[in-house]
């Protein structure tokens, strides 16, 4: 099986080829580059599955492909020399993520046939080139074996999101949304870059795995109590970890850098599906999982991750409640769900976080593609109040969308329930000992209710009741290229939970927590990157209410109850033939929610009230002091030159006289020095 890994670079290379082909020849191809993209992602998917099988048979791969710089540097822990490389790390985590990313990318490409080609869009070669580059960047990011390579592709992912969100660049809103996404995530990436530099200069290595990794170096430093840049080792690990987390918060749209994501809905719906399910937003959480060993050494960093996650989960869920645009609701649900993943990671629930990442990828891709299908049905109308009654007219879309909605809301036995419940359970048992985590857990739990509510509000408004407009009465039809991805993802949304039925395993004693075994080195594994290694590092105490089983049942019952309560509330309010807005009852809260807690306003205020004056002051300093010195020098020489040039009369006799006078003066000086006149 060793030979299989030599094909690993091709996983990322296929979409890159598709990118080049679509860009160069897309115009002349029958489907404007779609076929190249579909073939490439299918190839990536196939190879990813081969990798998964290889890892399942007990093999892993960690190798350097290209070394592009070697430097001599004395680092803080005393290692001399640092290598910057491109390498590939295929372990259970990356193999799993490769399959998720390439599967979603493949389905999005297929769906695009119906959504973009079918709807007569122009600029399709550009679109498919963007998708190809996006997939390439994300797959390379997943394959990366060191932090710098991860950073580079992280940036490339950001660039691709910019290109694709701004696909309809002739509108006013899309370019603005693209710029916002780019700038906000770049703000986070700024900290990420500093974090990369800090880690490199501290440990002299950026590898994720092995003896030479920065994770192992940090472990040694903490064990030895080495002082790093004047801080205790643990404090320094926390600081650098949080710097890297800046990039994660930007990309994974966590509070307070989540504001770009709802605006990113300006892009084509297929792009939203790709961004939210498998590429851009998932990159942040994947990075936390990738270097989890590093975060695990800092309880402070973990608590912050957990708290930010829990807070974001609730915060975004409440905003999703009042949105009218079907894509906006999904956007806020994405922010909220990534909050759960961060919460899971933050409490040391590595398996739970990855599990939710996987399930979310499937059901969120499903929901977005379902929304895309609805948008096609509705002739590009996105306002849910203009829909209604689509249930009977588009049964495939309805049933698959419902499966996604049930998974999102966390209703048993759909996949979302199992992973969300596991995240909340992990948060609860740690929370019983840690008040901060308990607060994060409480927020996450409360968000379950809102999730159930907004999810089913969306379903009922879109599909149930009477059609509220003529387009809803006579919807457009959708083809196989739209239905096929929906059916595949619908099945996954229903069944993916089987991967890790932790509650069932605990109750019955059966060994069916496959994902945990997978991540814990039952199959192939890389030393130090397994769940129990991480679990030993995490310093959190765990508490239980009377016993483990009782705690688990209590937590699961609570979250399921809240989800059902949310769904039932939505059912009562909106599952009627002629639903009406109930927002008036919210009073002032409605305005706050509608305006997204004035997040955009305060960030604009920060930019205009703080950054702009600061930039102006810096500009002023530059223009007066710095430029003043430079201009002063030039003014002085100009003035001096103007005076001195008067010596030039243009009369050759004067020059000769000056020459002679100078010669005589020189003679006299030399004579004095030489002592002739003494």
């Amino acid at each position, binding site marked *: 099986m060793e030979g299989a890994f030599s094909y690993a670079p091709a996983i990322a290379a296929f979409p890159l080829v598709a990118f080049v082909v679509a860009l160069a020849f897309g115009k002349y191809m029958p489907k404007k580059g779609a076929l190249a993209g579909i073939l490439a992602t299918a190839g990536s998917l196939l190879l990813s599955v081969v990798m998964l099988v290889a890892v399942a048979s007990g093999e892993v791969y960690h190798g350097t492909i290209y070394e592009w710089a070697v430097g001599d540097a004395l680092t803080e822990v005393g290692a001399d020399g640092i290598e910057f490389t491109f390498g590939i790390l295929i372990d259970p985590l990356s193999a799993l993520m490769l399959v998720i990313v390439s599967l979603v990318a493949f389905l999005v490409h297929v769906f695009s046939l119906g959504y973009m080609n079918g709807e007569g869009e122009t600029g399709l070669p550009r679109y498919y080139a963007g998708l190809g580059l996006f997939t390439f960047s994300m797959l390379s990011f997943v394959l990366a074996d060191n932090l710098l390579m991860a950073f580079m592709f992280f940036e490339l992912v950001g660039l691709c999101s910019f290109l694709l969100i701004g696909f309809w660049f002739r509108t006013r809103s899309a370019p603005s949304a693209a710029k916002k996404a780019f700038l906000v995530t770049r703000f986070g990436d700024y900290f990420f870059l500093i974090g990369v530099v800090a880690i490199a200069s501290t440990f002299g290595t950026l590898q994720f795995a092995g003896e030479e990794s920065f994770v192992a170096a940090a472990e040694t430093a903490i064990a030895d109590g080495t002082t790093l840049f004047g801080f205790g080792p643990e404090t320094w690990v926390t600081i650098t970890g949080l710097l890297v987390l800046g990039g994660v918060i930007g990309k994974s749209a966590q509070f307070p850098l989540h504001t770009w994501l709802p605006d990113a809905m300006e892009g084509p719906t297929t792009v939203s599906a790709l961004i939210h399910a498998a590429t851009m937003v998932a990159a942040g959480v994947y990075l936390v999982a990738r270097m989890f060993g590093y975060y695990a050494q800092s309880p402070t960093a973990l608590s912050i991750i957990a708290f930010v996650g829990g807070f974001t989960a609730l915060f975004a869920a409440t905003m999703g409640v009042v949105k009218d645009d079907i894509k906006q609701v999904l956007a806020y649900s994405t922010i909220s769900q990534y909050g759960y993943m961060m919460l899971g990671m933050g409490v040391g629930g590595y398996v739970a976080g990855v599990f939710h990442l996987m399930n979310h990828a499937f059901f969120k891709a499903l929901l977005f593609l379902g929304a895309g299908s609805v948008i096609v049905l509705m002739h590009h109308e996105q306002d849910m109040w203009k829909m209604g009654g689509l249930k009977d007219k588009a049964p495939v879309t309805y049933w698959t969308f419902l499966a996604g909605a049930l998974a999102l809301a966390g209703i048993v036995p759909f996949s979302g329930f199992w992973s969300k419940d596991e995240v909340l359970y992990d948060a609860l048992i740690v929370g019983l000992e840690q008040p901060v985590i308990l607060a994060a857990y409480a927020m996450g739990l409360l968000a379950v209710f809102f999730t159930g509510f907004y999810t089913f509000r969306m379903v009922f408004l879109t599909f149930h009741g009477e059609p509220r407009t003529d387009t809803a009465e006579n919807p457009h039809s959708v083809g196989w290229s739209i239905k096929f991805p929906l059916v595949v993802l619908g099945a996954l949304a229903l069944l993916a939970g089987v991967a890790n039925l932790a509650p069932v395993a605990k109750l019955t004693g059966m060994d069916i927590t496959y994902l945990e075994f997978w991540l814990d080195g039952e199959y192939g594994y890389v030393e130090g990157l397994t769940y129990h290694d991480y679990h030993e590092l995490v310093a959190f105490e765990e508490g239980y209410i009377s016993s483990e089983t009782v705690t688990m049942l209590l937590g699961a019952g609570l979250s399921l109850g809240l989800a059902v309560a949310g769904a039932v509330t939505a059912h009562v309010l909106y599952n009627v033939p002629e639903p009406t807005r109930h927002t008036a009852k919210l009073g002032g809260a409605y305005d706050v929610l509608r305006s997204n807690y004035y997040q955009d306003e305060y960030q604009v205020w920060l930019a205009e009230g703080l950054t702009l004056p600061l930039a102006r002051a810096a500009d002023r300093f530059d223009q007066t002091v710095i430029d003043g010195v430079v201009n002063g020098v030039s003014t002085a020489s100009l003035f001096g030159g103007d005076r001195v*040039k008067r010596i*030039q*009369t*243009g*009369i*050759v*006799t004067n020059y*000769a*006289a000056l020459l*002679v006078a100078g010669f005589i003066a020189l003679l006299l000086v030399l004579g004095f020095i030489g002592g002739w006149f003494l």
Partner: protein
Amino acid sequence: MSVAAGVEYYVLLSMGLFCIGLFGILTRRNALMFLMSVELMLNAANINLIAFAFYHGNLTGQVFALFTMALAAAEVAVGLGIILVLYRNFRDVDVTVPTTMRW
């Protein structure tokens, strides 16, 4: 071969010639006089070269004197050319008239 006169006399002669040339350059306004003065100064240098060559008993100085003569001939050619252009532009060969070749 005997030294007819001490080398210092040649040096004095050369100095005198050089000073006459220099005086001409500093006081005359006629470009032709300029050229002649320059010739005087070059020849002063030649006398020096030959006198010291004779004094030291080798040929180096004489060879250089030959070079100087060739150089002087070339210089005169260029100088006369300049004077011709000067005359064509200013209808005069007064070196103080053209003063525009400055800043």
